[in-house]
């Protein structure tokens, strides 16, 4: 799937590894079960985790120092657990690696995902990055603190600096 970051499509260096496939010597995204069961002590290439929407970030806290990427998933666009997962990873666990949104993500959700600490999104084949970018910029005022939000304008308002 094409990967969107900072308004453009970027190359994806990561591979998703099925639970029964060997782990290649390149940046690899594994399931939680695989990460827990596999002996990865000698591995040098980067590791990523495909976080299930039902898994709470505290359950993976011990693994975080080893992870460079976590995917959070919207099984359907209206299933918003990923928003809270991303925020918890950044806010409570200080995770600084890539958080990638996957699944059924609408362009209309991209701005909010970013404000919850997500860094990249997998977009459908053929998606127009310009449309995602337009959608993201449509609203540049927000009323609540969030990750990546700018200094307050006054009252509860923040103009979004990162937009």
């Amino acid at each position: 799937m094409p990967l969107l970051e900072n308004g453009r499509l970027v190359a994806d260096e990561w591979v998703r590894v099925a639970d029964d496939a060997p782990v290649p010597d390149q940046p690899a995204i594994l399931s939680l079960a695989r990460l827990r069961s596999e002996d990865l002590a000698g591995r040098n290439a980067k590791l990523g985790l495909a976080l299930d929407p039902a898994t709470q970030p505290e359950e993976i806290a011990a693994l975080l120092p080893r992870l460079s990427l976590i995917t959070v998933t919207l099984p359907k666009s209206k299933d918003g657990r990923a928003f809270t997962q991303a925020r918890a990873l950044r806010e409570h666990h200080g995770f600084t690696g890539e958080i990638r949104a996957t699944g059924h993500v609408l362009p209309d959700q991209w701005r909010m995902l970013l404000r919850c600490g997500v860094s990249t999104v997998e977009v459908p084949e053929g998606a127009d990055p310009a449309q995602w970018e337009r959608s993201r910029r449509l609203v540049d005022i927000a009323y609540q603190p969030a990750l990546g939000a700018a200094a307050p304008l006054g009252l509860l308002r923040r103009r979004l600096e990162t937009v």
Partner: protein
Amino acid sequence: MNAISKPGLPAPSYPPHARTYRYDEVDREFLQERIAEFTGQIERRLRGELTEDEFKPLRLMNGLYLQLHAYMYRIAIPYGILNATQLRQLAMIARRWDRGFGHFTTRQNIQFNWTKLEDVPDIARALADVDMHAIQTSGNCIRNTTTDEYAGASPDEVVDPRIYAEIIRQWSTLHPEFTWLPRKFKIAISGAPHDRVALQVHDIAVQAKQNAAGEIGFEIWAGGGLGRTPILATRLRDWVPEEEFLAYLEAVLRVYNALGQRENIYKARIKILVRDLGEEFRQRVEQEFARLPKQRYRLDPEIVAQIAAHFAPPPFAALPDNPAGFAGMLAGNAEFAAWAGRSVRAHRQPGYASVTISLKPIGGIPGDASAEQMEAVAALAERHSFGEIRVSHVQNLVLPHVRQEDLPAVWQGLREAGLATPNIGLISDIIACPGMDYCALATARSIPVAQMISERFADLDRQHDIGECFINISGCINACGHHHVGHIGILGVDKRGAESYQITLGGSATNDAALGELVGPGFAYDQVTDAVETILRTHLAHRRPGERFIDTYRRIGLAPFKEALYAAA
């Protein structure tokens, strides 16, 4: 794109003293951005770039709901407060884009039942012209916060709930994390010891309080709700300091968003999570609250002070209570006295009163108002209530600050508009959901049942004799008419293709909140009114002098009512 500023957004001219939150350019610009976003979403849907499944949550969170015959557009009236200019604009919208009526709801909003999809951007712009919108009036997000319709006017008020309701409104508007919740989310806040907002049936209920040191804090409850599994709220915390108010709400919402059920729509409300987790729910909230960065979510007292300034008392005159013009009319005009006895309420400022306007004329549709009536109320508000109007959660309107000496004139004005029915709190002051007349989910008619009952008891002397009694009617198990908490609750279901009405007794939505008890087998459509009559006759036969229906019921229990209803069978 930091410094964009959109020129040419004219500031609406408001009645000079109305205590509504006043938008500034940033608020107005935000609304314009949001309208542009939603207009674009409608266009993408019409071009087929969005599927109906994808579009649905987007249109819902912009207030657009698909009913039986047409789209319904539900417009937010934040915590039920309007100024006269806004009410006039709603009248204009009713005339131009609907059928000349609007319907006030139990969430203190207004809905238009005959909206065309292609008109929505124009209506949204007409709303924005008077600083209104339809954001988050539907969908699985944080809905309009409700509060006391007598806020800022009631003698028993301890903390002005409007300030914190506005803070919640801003904080919850397009909240980045809580816009895709498992299910809808409703918050109510009260600042008085007497609960006039049905706290116990809300996803989050906030009781604002003051401690001995004069500091403001909040008692927080969660997990109340009606629907097919009615549950009263559970208390999470006795005291959350003002500065941590939003942090605590964040914590509750995070636990819900992470753990709330998503597969089964009937189990997705927070009440199920609170019930299933029990004490663990509270612990999880506390844990989340303890670790979230307090500074980031701190509610700055300066912000509170700025918002509070919007709700400063209007310039009241120093007036005596019970002026001659009012007292004389009370003594000399029985019709006026009957109306005043139901509609006029004590005010914290001497010489003033709050007036409740009944939107329940005998045989009418509960909560409906015509464009002409809205304009009449707007004019009365301008002349007599500092330009301010409230919507109550029982679907009536309120003029919060009326000079007692003006009450006869207000009554005259209301009479001319057909708005002076003296039935506030009586059995024809019925809450009814739209039911089969509009709602695609309905299993029975609701409005016509309200109309039949209201007509049966059209004699107002009889209504007065029966005394305070709340009838709530829902057209299906989703309970939008709050039947569980009506003194008499009526639920219309489908029984083998025919409408059947189940009756519950003893519900209450105030400080002594309780869910009603089922009396027995349901009644057919044409038997409901007789059943209500039997119930009320039983009350009259057993009541002690001056006793309200609910108190009689609590004293004598279900049995005598049951016997009267089913004895003949």
